[in-house]
């Protein structure tokens, strides 16, 4: 898509202090024989103002990972590990303390704007309630600020929109409202979970540009969750590739796009359509299905679908280990770009 034409941003992660630091986070549902591990020992780090892309097929655990970080998982889920936001541990935090962070310091934009807004409340109410709660604004001030923010996300006739209900707005418009809502309190971290998946292609580009400009302007760190590598180009500083609940490759965006190490990353990148490809040729795809999360792990989870797999792969699970200066990969036989 567009990523070939955009310049790749410079890596400034090393200098920035960490905004979010996650250590060995695991999420499990159910118990006993029917236990499902949705996220397995994921560690990640997002510096202030930095953008981290998380890529994986649906079911790879990327949404569960961030739902867990936000403390939004149902009570049946068990989360272990550590989530530090600006140094403070978030796991096991009291609901009151958690609510002081959510919507103010960390906010989230969800995948489906059609169902993510409360249907019976006016747009204005849903925006101002955040400000009145977190910024202790009175109704008039909150309204003023909400209006500004709606205009900021390029919503036309913002004053009128404030009085409308979600169903009166188009999908792209609603996603803009969601973004405006997330940015109301100038959060330090914005989590965007497949923010463009439910939208038309033309609207997708607009929403991405909007996210990018909001981030630049507010200096917000961002986690951009997607199944589409193409979206990350030009946006993400670092990228995590997830498969079956685990991180299989972590690298800075430029390195990953140029030379993916893990066969799965390479496969995903190959799925991205390019202009250079002959029009008639079929889009490549990765054959097979992700593993059943109820099955016990034996060896590499990707092995059954991997073209490079050898005997070792189905016996021993590859650890995520340092490959070169700033890259990590979990593969016995990574691509060699040397």
């Amino acid at each position, binding site marked *: 898509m567009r990523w070939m034409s955009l310049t790749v941003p410079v890596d400034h992660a090393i200098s920035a202090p960490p905004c979010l630091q996650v250590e060995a986070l695991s999420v499990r549902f159910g118990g006993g024989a029917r236990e499902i591990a949705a996220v397995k020992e994921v560690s990640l780090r997002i510096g202030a103002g930095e953008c981290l892309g998380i890529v994986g097929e649906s079911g790879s655990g990327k949404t569960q990972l961030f739902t867990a970080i*936000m403390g*939004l998982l149902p009570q049946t889920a068990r989360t272990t590990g550590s989530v530090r936001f600006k140094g403070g541990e978030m796991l096991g935090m009291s609901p009151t303390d958690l609510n002081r962070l959510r919507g103010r310091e960390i906010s989230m934009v969800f995948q489906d704007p059609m169902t993510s807004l*409360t*249907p019976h409340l006016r747009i204005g109410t849903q925006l101002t309630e955040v400000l009145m709660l977190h910024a202790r604004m009175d109704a008039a001030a909150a309204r003023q600020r909400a209006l500004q923010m709606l205009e900021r996300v390029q919503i036309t006739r913002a004053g009128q929109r404030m009085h409308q209900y979600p169903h009166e707005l188009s999908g792209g418009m609603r996603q803009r409202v969601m973004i405006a809502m997330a940015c109301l309190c100038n959060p330090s971290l914005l989590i965007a979970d497949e923010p463009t998946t439910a939208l038309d292609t033309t609207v997708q580009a607009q929403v991405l540009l909007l996210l990018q400009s909001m981030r630049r302007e507010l200096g917000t760190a961002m986690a951009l969750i997607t199944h589409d590598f193409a979206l990350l180009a030009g946006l993400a500083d670092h990228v995590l590739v997830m498969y079956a609940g685990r991180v299989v490759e972590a690298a800075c965006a430029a390195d990953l796009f140029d030379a993916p190490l893990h066969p799965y990353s390479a496969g995903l990148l190959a799925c991205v359509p390019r202009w250079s490809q002959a029009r008639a040729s079929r889009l490549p795809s990765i054959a097979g299905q992700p593993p059943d999360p109820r099955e016990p792990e034996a060896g590499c989870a990707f092995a059954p679908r991997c073209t490079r797999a050898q005997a070792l792969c189905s016996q021993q699970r590859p650890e995520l280990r340092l490959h070169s200066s700033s890259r990590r990969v979990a593969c016995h036989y990574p691509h060699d770009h040397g």
Partner: protein
Amino acid sequence: MIRYFASRLAWGLPTLFVILTVTFFLIRIAPGGPFDEEQTLPAQIKRNLDAAYGLDQPLWVQYGRYLRGVAHGDFGPSFKYKDFTVTELISQGLPVSATLGSLAMALALIIGVLIGILAALRHQRWGDQAVMAAAVIGITVPSFVLLPFLALIFGVYLRWLPVAGWEPGSARHYVLPVIALTLPPLAFISRLTRASMLEVLRSPYIRTARAKGLPERIILWRHALRPALVPVAGFLAPAVAAIMTGSLVVESISGLPGIGRYLVQGALNRDYTLVMGMVVVYSALLIAMGLLVDLLYAWLDPRIRFQT
């Protein structure tokens, strides 16, 4: 909103008219007159009686007169309560029935919704399961089994409340009938509320509200309650019908002098005009309640307002 209301109203009035017409002609077509059972009546007296009640005139004249009467709130004389007109009997009974019915409806709604919400919040803990098991039984036990049973416990054994009967202005006589009338719809509403609340709490917009850092209190009352009440509003019309139906037996058992008791007495006595008047009044009430319910629906879900 006004258009929506008008379109609903446009449905109710013809229905009422159809009911009026059908009831009127069914009665006239039916074999036998109201005085047939008084067999000893000489032919001349019977003719005089028919003339006095206008039964000797052509059908369409009677129909026209009846319609005109109903439009003025006059349902004609009762055939069995000879000193009263049907309108008098209705205006006597209606306040009692209305008190009974609206109390039952209000209690069923308020308590039912509250129990449903509490059960949903305690989902899969013992409180939830106990309440829902009780609700299944509550839905099943018919009011005509429940009321005598309650009267037995609280009236006969404990002597806290009167077994039956009525005195003007006495609240104590209403207690047991209201409870018997309230419980079945209450149980149903609580089950309905619980189920829809559980579903709403799992919905994406509630997740958004949580992600916004809103406290549970605001999430529940501002974001979750109204959508969760939509199915309950859908049940209101059947609930009104159920309470009206239930009031027939409850009034008959407890001796509360409401219109339900008159209807049953009228039916047992084959008192044509009385039953006819009652059917019309009940139908009008039901249709009016249906309209109210539609309005409530529109308030709960803004999407409905824009359809016609």
